[in-house]
């Protein structure tokens, strides 16, 4: 009888003899994800270190084409976690850059949770952690200043062509859930945009600028209004079954 460990140890990546190579039907392929990537990420093939190069180049592709595939990125980190010798710090920083662009989702931390402790002290990673920290605290002006003036910071996301745009999207969402109207100048500082560029951004978003062009009105949504609601209790029928039961007994 072959033991599990022998079989497995020779082929750590594809451990199941009768195959588990078809993605579960409940894992629909996200748009833009190539089929071969889908097959790796959604099956036990994700543990096969031989897939590292394919997944790594897919990370680059995501940066160039401005598509973000969280699960594929985490699959790379998982392979590094299990096979530390394959660790590629450049790919890690690329993934962290993509995760910054995914804010307000907490993907950046989800990546950090899977990284080896030593990687966190890497100089580039430390810079990205600082950038993340500023963004999480909505310190947008400081964020742009750090990104553009600290040596090496800009280079970390240079390959991610739409990085600035992604961060502006995040800033816009954050401002949009808090403000109904905001000074144009302050908005410009948050977005690191001015003049024509700022006007263009505002136009793209369909926001409305006051006549004297000092104030930007943001569309009213569920999240930037506050209405007092009184929540009434609701008793479910099930809660009364016991009482009704007693009624029946006494008859």
């Amino acid at each position, binding site marked *: *009888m*072959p*033991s*599990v*460990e*022998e079989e*497995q*140890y020779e082929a*750590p990546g594809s*451990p*199941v003899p*009768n195959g*588990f190579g078809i993605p*579960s039907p*409940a*894992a629909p392929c996200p748009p833009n994800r190539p089929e071969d990537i889908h097959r790796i990420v959604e099956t*036990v093939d994700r543990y096969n270190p031989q897939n590292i190069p394919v997944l790594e180049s897919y990370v680059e592709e995501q940066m160039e084409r401005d598509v973000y595939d969280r*699960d594929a990125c*985490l699959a790379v980190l*998982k392979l590094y*976690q*299990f096979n530390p010798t394959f660790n590629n710090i450049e790919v890690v920083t690329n993934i962290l850059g993509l995760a910054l662009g995914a804010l*307000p989702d*907490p993907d950046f*931390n*989800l990546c950090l*949770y*899977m990284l080896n*402790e030593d990687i*966190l002290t890497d100089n580039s990673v430390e810079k990205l952690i600082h950038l993340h*920290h500023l963004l*999480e*605290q*909505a*310190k947008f002006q400081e964020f742009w200043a750090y990104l553009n003036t600290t040596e090496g910071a800009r280079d970390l996301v240079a390959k991610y062509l739409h990085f600035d745009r992604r961060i502006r999207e995040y800033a816009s969402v*954050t*401002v949009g*859930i*808090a*403000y*109904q*109207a905001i*000074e144009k100048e*302050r908005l410009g500082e948050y977005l690191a945009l001015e003049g024509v560029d700022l006007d263009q951004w505002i136009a793209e978003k369909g926001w409305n600028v006051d006549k004297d062009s000092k104030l930007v009105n943001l569309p009213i949504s569920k*999240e*930037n*209004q*506050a209405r*007092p*609601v*009184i*929540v*009434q*209790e609701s*008793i479910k029928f099930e*809660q009364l079954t*016991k*009482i009704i039961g*007693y009624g029946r*007994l006494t008859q």
Partner: protein
Amino acid sequence: MYQEPYDEDEVRADEVELPTVYAGDEYAEEEIDYQTEGLPAFAPEIQIPELVRNFILHFHRNVTERNVWDLHAIYENGWNKLTEKFYPKTAWPDPEAIAGLVNDDPVFLILYKELYYRHIYSKMTPTIEDRIASYSNYCDLFNYILNSSTEPSDLELPNQWLWDIIDEFIYQFQSFCMYRSKVKNKSEIEIELLKERPDVWNVHNVLNVLYSLIQKSRINEQLLVSKNGGDMLEAAGDFGSRPLYRLLGYFSIIGLLRVHCLLGDYVLALKTMENVELNKKGLFARVTACHVTTYYYVGFAYMMMRRYSDAIKAFAHILLFVSRTKQYHTRSYQFEAISKKSEQMYALLAMCVALSPQRIDENVHTTMREKYGEQSMKMQRGEEGLPTFEELFNFACPKFISPVPPDYEVAVNASHEPTRHQQRIFMAEVRTQLLVPTIRSFLKLYTTLGVEKLAAFLDLPVDEVRTQLLVFKHKTRQRRYESGSVLEGDFGPTTDLDFYLKQDLIYIAESKQGRRVGEWFIRHINKFEDIVSNMEKRHE
């Protein structure tokens, strides 16, 4: 409004297969009568007490006869009673010593060894030889189940035992990872052994077992059919139709949820659960320990994904269940484990409620305040509350592990590093929202308030306060589960106190709870009816 989406199909205590519902004493009297005649002429080298020997013969017969009902009693009562009586601090008889009693039945010996090593892990300190041997035994067990034949095995075991097999398998893996990372305390012989056997408790092998069980049982296909309809027999196949495979497959999903959490991969953890419907009464509810484990790890993963609202629901749901079914657990051999997990979940709940204040079930809230009232207050106090967060996190988090062996040349003990790593990142997150509770307490007092005035209250520069208001909005907006798989969720505000800004003026609105009297009346009507019916009984 606080809703409880998990609660719709609430599991009623009487439908759950609760451990130890058998009267133990009955068994103790009985056991003396187990066939004493026809014993093989066998002189064991180790003295095996008569009671134990009879027990093993009885045990073996019931395994051979596939008598699940009696195995239940044997597993949950007989074994534990004899452990208390004869082996409270020493190992059960060596498997070799009992082999003769059971005609060297290989399957029985594997099952016996499963219990034998589990007992060593729980009552003694396993040696490296024990760890390796126990691992090999699990390999034998899973090979027997998965690879011994093209036909499914007709072995049947109690659900509780099947859960404990998966649970223990992961526990021993976790324990081994901690053990090997304590290089400083190792002898040379131990280190040699560890280097020689990198396969033992290797993370790939552990995952392989769990994935293989899921695959063989076609449990995901079965869950999909039960969700969307279809031919269950066809989906399940020859193996998956048998309870042994179906349950091991199902428990392996929960097992993967746990392993992925232990490795800090919260997305994959919840993704593993994509076909399990938490809002329906699933198989996980059949075994209480599994039920508790499922919600603990789902809740924990949500918390780490900054989905505090979902985490709160998960913890509140299971804590309510545990408190309602308490009288059953106290008789269970798992009582201690369940109480410990509950304690931890109250701590996690207190943390999540501090981070994202909201209404929770009254009973759960009361218990939480009793246990962690003081800590809850501290956690609302900004910087001052950080040590409390840290303390509760350390108490309530799982013991994280590193999937790779340490450098055996460097004599350090690094078994706590993975937990420190998770804690550090979590605390950095907590630190970014320190002022949220303070701001909330000021906003609560107004319907409109100028940013400058708030800045004066907080003693902060105006610009800083504007930033903090953005942080408030950003942090109180979380993904929340609505429908679909546990990983799905849409962004929405989670706070009962909301505001918006028009330039530098804050407009505030607070959602209030109407008076809730219904639950109070229901509780007291029930109490009254109970008293009346008790009095009537006495009267008769």
